């Protein structure tokens, strides 16, 4: 019989556990005893009591905030709004508006002409070209994350500048990683979505850590199995490069 892990206890404690874990807990005396001990230890954790705010607290906040706020401009709609705008607008503004309208019209007409002349080519190239672009961009992202994880794996440096660079890279990658993860998830690529999901945890830890030190990086390495994630990323990177090469020869 496989006993429940601490993570499963955590899920159960916060009412997010599955029915299988619940059933096991009822059947297994050993897990039941460990879960009781687990529950007691979590109940022991109590954060500071929130200091009381008076009934007028909201009012005080508002009084401090009020002078800093600039009122939104009233939105004008309909004919009266147009008339009001027209009344205030100078000739210069009107000339700029007419100029913009002409540029817009030229862009639309030019675009239509260009679309007609290139339509056949773009239809023929579209799916593969798009896929290639996606693979190149993804490959670049995986390449960058691979380099970052290698740095994390070998970082023993007490130099705060080096760690700050690592952190700034993690912050950049975090935003793009989120987009790739969502896309992979939507397209049903479970392996990629899973790896990017685990990677996101590591990136978030590094990106959000104040005063990132070598000790913090060591903790991230130990707690989050960065070596395993690096291995996954290398495989995915190789896969995306392979697909990119195949796509280019088609």
């Amino acid at each position, binding site marked *: 019989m496989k006993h429940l892990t601490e993570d499963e206890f955590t899920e159960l404690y916060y009412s*997010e556990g599955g029915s299988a874990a619940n059933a096991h807990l009822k059947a297994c005396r050993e897990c039941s005893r460990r879960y009781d001990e687990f529950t007691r230890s979590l109940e*022991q954790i109590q954060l500071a009591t929130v200091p009381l705010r008076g009934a007028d607290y909201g009012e005080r906040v508002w009084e401090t905030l009020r002078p800093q706020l600039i009122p939104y401009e009233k939105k004008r709609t309909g004919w009266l709004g147009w008339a009001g705008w027209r009344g205030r607008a100078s000739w210069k503004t009107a000339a700029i508006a007419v100029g913009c309208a002409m540029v817009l019209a030229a862009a639309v007409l030019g675009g239509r002409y260009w679309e007609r002349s290139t339509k056949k080519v773009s239809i023929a190239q579209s799916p593969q070209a798009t896929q290639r672009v996606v693979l190149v961009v993804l490959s670049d992202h995986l390449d960058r994350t691979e380099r970052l994880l290698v740095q994390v794996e070998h970082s023993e440096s007490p130099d705060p500048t080096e760690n700050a660079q690592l952190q700034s890279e993690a912050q950049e990658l975090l935003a793009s990683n989120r987009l790739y993860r969502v896309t992979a998830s939507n397209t049903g690529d479970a392996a990629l979505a899973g790896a990017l999901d685990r990677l996101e945890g590591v990136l978030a830890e590094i990106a959000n850590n104040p005063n990132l030190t070598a000790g913090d990086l060591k903790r991230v390495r130990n707690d989050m199995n960065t070596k395993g994630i690096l291995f996954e990323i290398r495989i995915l990177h190789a896969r995306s490069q392979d697909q990119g090469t195949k796509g280019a020869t088609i």
Partner: protein
Amino acid sequence: MQGNDHSIVRAVLAGDKEAYGALVRAHSATVFRVAFRITGNEADAEEIVQEAFLRGYQRLESYEQRSAFGTWIYRIAVNCALNRVSKPGIEAEYRHGEDTDPADKSVQVATPDADPERVLLSREISAVQETAMQRLTPTEKCAFVLRHIEDRSMSEIAEVLEIAPNAAKQAVFRAVQKLRRELAPLRGNA
């Protein structure tokens, strides 16, 4: 309340700045509560309340009226608090299971009697809990506070912290593991 909040937002966007006061009055206490729980510091929490409502006002045009204003401003406040605890050099001052007196920084332990032995034990527990919380990363700390104290679901935590649901769950798991490990010696005393 939600419908009322929405009509207030429309009024503010139409130029009625004063209407925003009603939203500030209604949601200040909740925002202060979560800010204090994350930072553990009264002065920081006060500043976060101001910052959250100011940011909220500036971004009011992007507020989508599908969610309640309270939920929206709560998310902004959590992000402000996370930024605050993530700033280098700013250490959150956690005081667990006790009130602090800002005037003299003395500790008022929440025990009904003044038994010196219990006072001492209570202080020891508080100190260990404080150290344990400080050893968590900002994301872990935030995720743990939101789950354990604020009773937010994993998906809500993920949304608020703008991370994947699984990353939020893992952050809570790690926080629980670390805290239990750090607090293990206390369990012998209990």
